[in-house]
């Protein structure tokens, strides 16, 4: 089988293109004029499509984690610590991860579809002709909007998760409410919450950048847009899970000490 140099170097060039756009975005982020209107519109848009799915997805995971921890703790006679388990699981893992799954699955896909459709209709070229840098006008506000909403949403998700786990433990599995609440801060401290927020911010930033890169570099009609959106989801999830393990491994010494 003969693979042309073009095909063989495609992934390398894609990674290069991604870093080029990332660099451009970071440089133009601090260069006026900042596209406020687009930023606010995108924030509202991402928040609108993400909030309900995020809440709907958190509740099941809160219930299941509460359930599994309680089964385990009840068996060793430590059901009073069920709040501790719920706090660890929700604050450090499920909160940021659910946020990112939803921001990548709902917000980033829509961004990529929108930018991809514009690329195909050559609207981005039209912007360039008019002397407007599409990265400054479209990419920067979108990336920042994904970051902002991701940070804000992770708090909502963590709160929902904790309330869900509380209801499940206290009303369904007969854990004492006071012991549950008192157990929350046994192992979860300020450092965990800060690391969780750093995670959510990084996740939103990465998801936004991947979506915008895929949207801008799309080609080949409707099938191309569909493929680009699909790739956005896959690459975003891969990078996010990778970021999660790295940030967790780096943050763990701060969390346990």
């Amino acid at each position: 089988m003969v693979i042309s140099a073009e095909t063989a170097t495609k992934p390398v060039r894609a990674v290069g293109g991604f870093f080029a756009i990332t660099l451009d975005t970071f440089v133009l982020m601090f260069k006026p004029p900042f596209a406020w209107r687009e930023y606010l519109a995108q924030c509202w848009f991402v928040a609108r499509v993400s909030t309900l799915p995020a809440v709907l997805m958190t509740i099941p995971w809160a219930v299941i984690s509460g359930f599994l921890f309680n089964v385990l703790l009840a068996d060793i006679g430590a059901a009073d610590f069920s709040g501790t388990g719920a706090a660890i699981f929700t604050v450090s893992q499920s909160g940021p991860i659910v946020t990112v799954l939803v921001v990548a699955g709902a917000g980033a896909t829509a961004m990529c579809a929108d930018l991809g459709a514009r690329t195909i209709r050559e609207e981005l070229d039209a912007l360039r002709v008019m002397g407007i840098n599409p990265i400054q006008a479209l990419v920067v506000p979108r990336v920042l909007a994904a970051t902002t909403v991701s940070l804000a949403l992770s708090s909502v998700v963590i709160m929902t998760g904790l309330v869900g786990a509380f209801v499940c433990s206290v009303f369904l599995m007969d854990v004492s409410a006071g012991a549950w609440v008192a157990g929350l801060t046994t192992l979860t401290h300020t450092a965990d919450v800060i690391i969780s927020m750093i995670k959510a911010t990084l996740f939103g930033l990465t998801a936004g950048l991947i979506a915008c890169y895929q949207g801008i570099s799309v080609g080949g009609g409707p099938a191309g847009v569909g493929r680009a959106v699909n790739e956005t989801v896959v690459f975003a999830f891969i990078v996010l899970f990778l970021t999660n393990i790295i940030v967790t491994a780096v943050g763990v010494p701060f969390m346990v000490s």
Partner: protein
Amino acid sequence: MTLSVPSGLHPRFQRMRNAAVGGWNQIGSQTRFYATTLAGIPDAVVNYRSELLRVIAQMGLGSGALAVIGGTVVIVGFLTITTGAIVAVQGYNQLASVGVEALTGFASAFFNTREIQPGTVMVALAATVGAGSTAQLGAMRISEEIDALEAMGIRSVSYLASTRVLAGVIVAVPLFCVGLMTAYAAARLGTTAIYGQGSGVYDHYFYTYLSPTDVLWSMAEVAAVALMIMLLCTYYGYTARGGPAGVGEAVGRAVRASMVVASILIVVMTLAIYGQSGDFHLAG
């Protein structure tokens, strides 16, 4: 058509009613699509076998840029490696902070099998196989290829949707097995090689609490989740409209809907399988 009427009597009320009726009709048409798809599975096996095999091969290996990085198997393996390693990193350290880090092997056997890996594989399936089907079918719908199939006398739901649903369920279970293996390996490697726990301690607690029944139940969970995801994703792809942007939107909607529905399904199945007592005994 309502266009011939100059203006309605109660426009706001009418709009609300139309929205409600439209939503209701959409539920109906969605249900009918699912019924047609499931009923078309025998038809697909008998008449469209080559297409079925092609779709299975494509789902296992991926298409386009996803095939370049190794396809669905590699993506699932990669995601489960990271979540398995999380069990080592977070589990080992949190357990060490209360002095029972010896139980990390137990945490891997218990949480990986019952909750974390079905969840991770669900996410991976929705992103790769599910969203990929939506993108393909959506692009076909937009470029009127589905109408062309119908015009050629091919039953498009059986040919496109039923084959993909069946193929998704068929590839899901082996993918889950691969994912579970890599997750166990990552958790073991992280705990023993990186955090330096004795591998005998780890293996002892791991094998003591690894329950084959749990693994089988999780496989059943993943198969059910795959069926749900494929039904949702083929529906959104099959009914995509609105040009190139519409395909992208359909993919986004499919990913969102399938993750929410699959999460709820996993919880319902977990509670149904293990019951309120959890079917678990630490002391044996």
